[in-house]
């Protein structure tokens, strides 16, 4: 009995040694297999993290994962050649998935660029076709009549014209602007000069509010000196109570800028002096007149519109 036990233990031990030998692969093989499987897993994780891969190359990524599974299965049997081969396939399929996704992403970028190009061309064509109406041909001059008597408040009916002027000016950024203020002949020349300046300032303020740089704008107070209609009639005086926006022609503009800078500072400072002298008395009148004038203004505006309709 003892003999039998001793014999069987010996066989068992031999079996265990043999089993041990067959299950423990050489350290070099373990390292090689681990590296191969590790690299493949890393490549797959990297590809899976790329949203383009999920979108465009998911089937290739699945094949890579499949190969990685085969590599792990081969390594569980300690078949190093099959393990490294399947790991190689897994890693390169992941790389292929990544590359296919890159390619599709580049294609998308080309499509976007093509759309952008078409858009740019369309915009430029639209701009080019729109320009003749927008570009300022030579000198441009626009009268904004209908200021209420004694006030510098912008007439309501001038607002669309101001908006149009502002957009034209913004699309012609190189062009300087001169704003002239005019009055009717009622009142003293000094008072009218100051009032004319205020009317020009009101127009400038409206243009600046609409985005025109104030540095482009020069003010000029013409007072009552340049009427466009008879001061003997109510309608004529309303026509004369105006501001004029002048955009000098390019050639004249460039020379006018130099000369106007000197003359403007003279006029504006002169105007300011006069204003200071006049303002104390006028302002109260003006403010009172302004509020009354608002109502008058609207009435006059409506009349003005009516008149035009009648014409």
């Amino acid at each position: 009995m003892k003999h039998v036990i001793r014999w069987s233990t010996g066989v068992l031990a031999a079996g265990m040694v043999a089993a041990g030998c067959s299950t423990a692969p050489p350290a070099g093989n373990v390292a090689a297999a681990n590296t191969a499987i590790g690299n493949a897993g890393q490549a797959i994780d990297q590809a899976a993290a790329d949203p383009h891969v999920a979108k465009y190359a998911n089937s290739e990524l699945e094949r890579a994962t499949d190969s990685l599974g085969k590599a792990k299965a081969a390594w569980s049997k300690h078949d190093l050649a099959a393990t490294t081969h399947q790991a190689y396939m897994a890693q390169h399929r992941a790389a292929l998935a990544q590359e296919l996704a890159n390619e599709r992403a580049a294609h998308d970028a080309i499509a976007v660029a093509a759309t952008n190009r078409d858009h740019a061309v369309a915009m430029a064509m639209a701009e080019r076709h729109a320009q003749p109406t927008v570009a300022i041909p030579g000198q441009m001059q626009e009268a904004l009549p209908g200021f209420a008597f004694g006030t510098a408040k912008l007439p309501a009916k001038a607002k669309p014209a101001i908006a149009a002027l502002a957009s034209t000016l913004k699309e012609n950024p190189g062009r300087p602007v001169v704003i002239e203020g005019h009055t009717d002949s009622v009142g003293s020349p000094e008072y009218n000069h100051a009032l004319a300046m205020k009317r020009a300032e009101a127009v400038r303020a409206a243009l600046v509010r609409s985005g025109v740089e104030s540095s482009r704008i020069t003010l000029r107070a013409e007072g009552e000196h340049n009427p466009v209609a008879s001061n003997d009639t109510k309608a004529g005086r309303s026509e004369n109570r105006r501001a004029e926006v002048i955009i000098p022609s390019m050639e004249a503009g460039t020379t006018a800028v130099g000369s106007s800078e000197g003359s403007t500072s003279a006029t504006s400072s002169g105007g300011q002096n006069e204003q200071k002298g006049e303002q104390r008395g006028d302002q109260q009148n003006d403010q009172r007149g302004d509020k009354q004038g608002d109502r008058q203004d609207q009435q006059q505006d409506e009349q003005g519109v009516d008149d035009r309709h009648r014409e």
Partner: protein
Amino acid sequence: MMRAHLFHHPSRMLAAGCLLVLSGCANEALHNQLASSREAVDQAKIAGAAETVPADFDLAVDKLNRANAAADHRRKDDAMRLAQQAQIDADLARARTDSAQSRFAAAEMAKSNQVLRDALSHANQNQPR
């Protein structure tokens, strides 16, 4: 003499027949794999991989050559693995070529768009008034 003796026994003949069928299957699979690997390499060449990614392309060609050599020496497992690797190498070389070309095209397009935009805005600004 030896050979004749081998096939005398019916069960041995059967076993040999089975082996032949099996190896025939294996040969056919290897043959197909080698053919598709060759096809993949050819496609990569057509795509321009030899010029765009020469190292990747040469690797695929080298593996295909080694796969054929292994098949000639009846190392079927090696031949099969090398052929499979040659195929994925060739596919990858081709994909890298395609994507490099697409990225180049996308970059060129973006560049030419910028040139176009500049030219258009310049043309519009310089339009005679």
